[in-house]
């Protein structure tokens, strides 16, 4: 016996009062009646929100850099990392004069996350080498159409006037971890070549 909570089942004959059921029904009704005045468990969602952790993994944001250019370089690592295959993108080469818009020479002209497929695991954020995508503590609101859950760049990229703060998720510790060459996944091709050269 793992706990002391088990009870011996008694199969005794019911007494007359129990057979009449009415006292039992009456006490049951008193219980339901008392529940009318109990505190309700409901959280009236859009107006009232359940407290969530500061590092909650909710709707994604595509960050811009300090100058306001998009950080994403359409490398596709997030899409590869995504276990739910929720991310699709189309890459494009940056033209002359677009340097203020896109930080890297290659950028995502189309970037979509299907919020119905997404399981909010945060692997895209971990995979991103450019610190471009982050999960935030915003909840994805419900809508009536499936198509409305496919979020394009218009919904994902933060606006310049209204930057989304991700400092709680992008702490110094995380940044150091991402730089740490001890971990295999942080070594780039160049690192590999360097180690080979060093060895010989």
């Amino acid at each position, binding site marked *: 016996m793992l706990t002391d909570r088990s009870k011996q089942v008694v199969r005794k004959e019911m007494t007359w009062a129990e057979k009449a059921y009415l006292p039992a*029904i009456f006490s049951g*009704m008193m219980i339901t*009646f008392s*529940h*009318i005045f109990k505190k*309700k*468990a*409901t959280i009236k969602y859009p107006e009232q929100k359940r407290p969530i952790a500061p590092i909650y993994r909710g709707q994604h944001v595509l960050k811009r850099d300090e100058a306001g250019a998009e950080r994403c370089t359409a490398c596709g690592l997030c899409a590869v990392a995504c276990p739910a295959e929720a991310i699709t993108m189309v890459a494009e080469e940056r033209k002359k004069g677009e340097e203020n818009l896109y930080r890297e020479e290659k950028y995502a002209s189309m970037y979509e996350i299907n919020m119905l497929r997404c399981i909010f695991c945060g692997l895209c954020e971990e995979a991103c080498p450019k610190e471009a995508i982050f999960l935030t503590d915003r909840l994805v609101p419900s809508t009536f159409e499936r198509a409305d859950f496919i979020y394009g760049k218009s919904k994902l990229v933060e606006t310049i006037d209204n930057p989304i703060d991700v400092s709680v998720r992008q702490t110094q510790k995380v940044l150091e971890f991402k730089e740490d060459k001890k971990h295999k996944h942080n070594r780039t091709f160049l690192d590999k070549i360097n180690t080979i050269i060093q060895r010989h």
Partner: protein
Amino acid sequence: MEPIIFKAIVVGLIFSITLLVATYSTYAERKVSALMQDRVGPNRAGPFGLLQPIADAVKMFMKEELIPSVSNRWLFVLGPCISMLTALMAGVVIPWGGPITIGEQTFDFQIVDLNVGILFLFGVASLGVYGIMIGGWASNNKFSLLGAIRASSQMISYEIAMGLAIIALVMTTGTLSLKEIVNQQDAAYCNFVYQPLGCLIFIICAFAETNRAPFDLAECETELIGGYHTEYSSMKLGFYLFAEYINMFISSAVIACFYFGGYNFPFQHSLGIDGNWLSIIQFFVLFGKIVFFIFFFMWVRWTIPRFRYDQLMNLGWKGLLPLAIANIFVTGIVMWVNGDIN
């Protein structure tokens, strides 16, 4: 004023009140169930969700109307109509308040005072099963048919106990007219004092007659999908559901009239008001009682789980029927000892 005009007004009034109460019973049911389960219930449509029934009605009307091709079309449509008709018909004999004086004439606040009012009520209540039977049979669907069979056997079984409970009541009151019964309760105590057991049996049977939980085996979702209304959609389904709520309203009114003094309330003649004002207050008193019993119906529904079918039949035939017969005997003996009958 012509009596016929007054009657027409009363009919219109009662009809609309019945529909209104039934509409808001659906809201109340959801609210009560929610409150008893520590939830909030409908609160989005209008203040406190008060427009919810209207939204429901719109939804019902907008739904696609399906008539299974293998069903008997005519009977399929007839089923909900009968249910609705019989549900509405029963309100005719209920006295809603004391007499009302307009000019020189005095009218009863009742549509008709049948001298066989109880029999009429009983007849109409038994007719109600036809709506369910026909609907379930015409659907040409096993689940519907099973639901219909359950409903009819249940209603027939419980009608007997109900009838016997009323016989004891008729013995003490000596009349079949509802107005008489209510007026007698003005002079003396309400009938509940004389017939507590009969009242209990009657209330239990009323639950069974209206097909409400714990006796809702006819629509038992877990076993029969929706029972007799599995195949129904749109407003035809709405009619069935609505008829249930109207039945509940009428049953509450009947319970109040039979056993709890109808529109009478204690010390009503020492208030210093009479005539029309008293009648109007009486109407609201009756209404309060009805609202309480509707709440009671819902309260029971959200407390007690559904009976198993054999338990239902056992309770009806082996429990309530002997009890009702015993009640008649005891009533008779007490009346004989008291010298009310010789």
